[in-house]
């Protein structure tokens, strides 16, 4: 088939940027939705799995998140920031709301041996499941995290992935609340510095 026979809409959704794909969701473009899922499905899944730690619950949540986007694509406003940032925030917040609302009643399903196997740590730097642009950002954030002191990083992770408040972190780590607050601020400042070009330039 000659490439000229294909309309621009049908030609390679995978080459369009996120914001354009989101715009097309407004026209009920199923191909655009599929392209978004193929681009970010694994990232959203990995994020919520990291927080919920249960495959079944994580899958249900990925479905909920993507279908919500499909139903209400205008909940994303391009002027406020990049799509991937918005999507990961939505995913993280949804998953944390879930563990908080379940509270102590929450129990993990017994996972199969293959799933337990999957939970063993395996560092993957060049992940083929991520597009090159995301893979670069992943390297940056990993390097930035590696450079901040362990005690600050741990608190940031407990808050972001564990869904704990500063108060709860202080209790669980036997640290004074003031120490936890200081570590949150110092750690986030360092991450911001490592990830924001302006700040780095000013530091030189």
């Amino acid at each position, binding site marked *: 088939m000659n490439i000229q026979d294909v309309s621009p809409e049908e030609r390679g959704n995978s080459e369009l*940027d*996120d914001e*354009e794909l989101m*715009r097309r969701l407004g026209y*009920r473009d*199923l191909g655009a*939705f*599929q392209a978004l*899922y193929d681009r970010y499905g*694994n990232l959203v899944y*990995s994020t919520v799995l*990291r927080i919920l*730690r249960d495959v079944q619950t994580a*899958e249900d949540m*990925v479905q909920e998140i*993507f*279908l919500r986007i499909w*139903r209400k694509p205008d909940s994303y406003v391009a002027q406020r920031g990049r799509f991937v*940032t918005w999507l*990961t*925030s939505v*995913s*993280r*917040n949804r998953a944390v709301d879930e*563990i908080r609302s379940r509270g102590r009643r929450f*129990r993990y399903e017994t996972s199969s041996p293959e799933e*337990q196997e*999957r939970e063993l*740590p395996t560092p993957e*730097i060049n*992940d083929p499941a*991520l597009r090159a*642009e995301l893979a*670069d*950002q*992943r*390297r*940056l954030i*990993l*390097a930035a*995290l*590696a450079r901040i002191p362990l005690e600050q990083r*741990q608190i940031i992770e*407990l*808050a972001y*992935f*564990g869904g704990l408040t*500063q108060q709860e*972190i202080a*209790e*669980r780590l*036997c640290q004074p609340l003031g120490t936890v607050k200081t570590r*949150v601020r110092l750690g*986030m400042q360092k*991450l911001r510095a490592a*990830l*924001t*070009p302006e700040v*780095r330039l*000013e530091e030189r």
Partner: protein
Amino acid sequence: MRDSSEGLDARCVEARELVDAYALGALESREAAPLQRHVSDCAQCREELGKSQRTAALLSLSVRIEQARPRLRERILAHAEKERFEIPGWRRLVPSRRVGTRAVAFGGVVALVFAVFLQAQLSNLRGDNGQLQDQLSAASSELEQQRQIVAVLSAQDTQKVAMEQVSLRSQAESVYNWSPVNDAGFIVCRNFPAPAPGRVYQVWFVAGGRAEPVATFLPQNGGCQIPMDMSRMNWRPDGIGISVEAQGGSSRPTRPWFSYAWFNEASSGGGSHDMRMGIWAAAIGP
């Protein structure tokens, strides 16, 4: 660089102290509400909050990437297709070519700017350390280990047991966190004195006449964080103890407990100090 608190309204100073915690979702709702009100009126603090939120959102990219099962994709796409024309208020619109082109062009510029910035950052990293790949591999595997600890600490079912310190003069504190669903435990300690040269602290799981070594450690600035994977244990301990042992650890506790905790009252044998020491003595045998 200008001090961020210079010339700021007191309410702004207060707000700036909270933006990072807010972006991480770590504020109690009573702390978050005043901040939300303030940023709705104050453009500068809103901007600061935006920066923190963008930073926090990038944390998601640090997770280990898992492949979702293909059937999840099928399920989601099938739902989407079924609902395609069921959305209330949906109108079939023909996308305007002009707007589309502008949107693509705008997206292109943003992506380009970001790509340039990333390139600069990455070459910066390479400049700092030619072994970037090694450094990242090490960082990534350390992060994963760290995340096992975070998993235990943040699990909803985590039980916290304050350990008792045997020495009355000791300022030492230690807490045992145990998450049954993760089949893992975690000791946090502080104010532990450095052991005598050639000696280490050793952690033991104890049940009846049995004591199994778990880990040895030297406190750093008096603190410790000891993760314990219990998934391969085929017995359930009644308690946990820490003793001071020779470097390299012992196969049985050879000294009295430095600190210990019994997981439930029934297993503490009435809770007397002697009984606990009795269990310890039984553990090391005649």
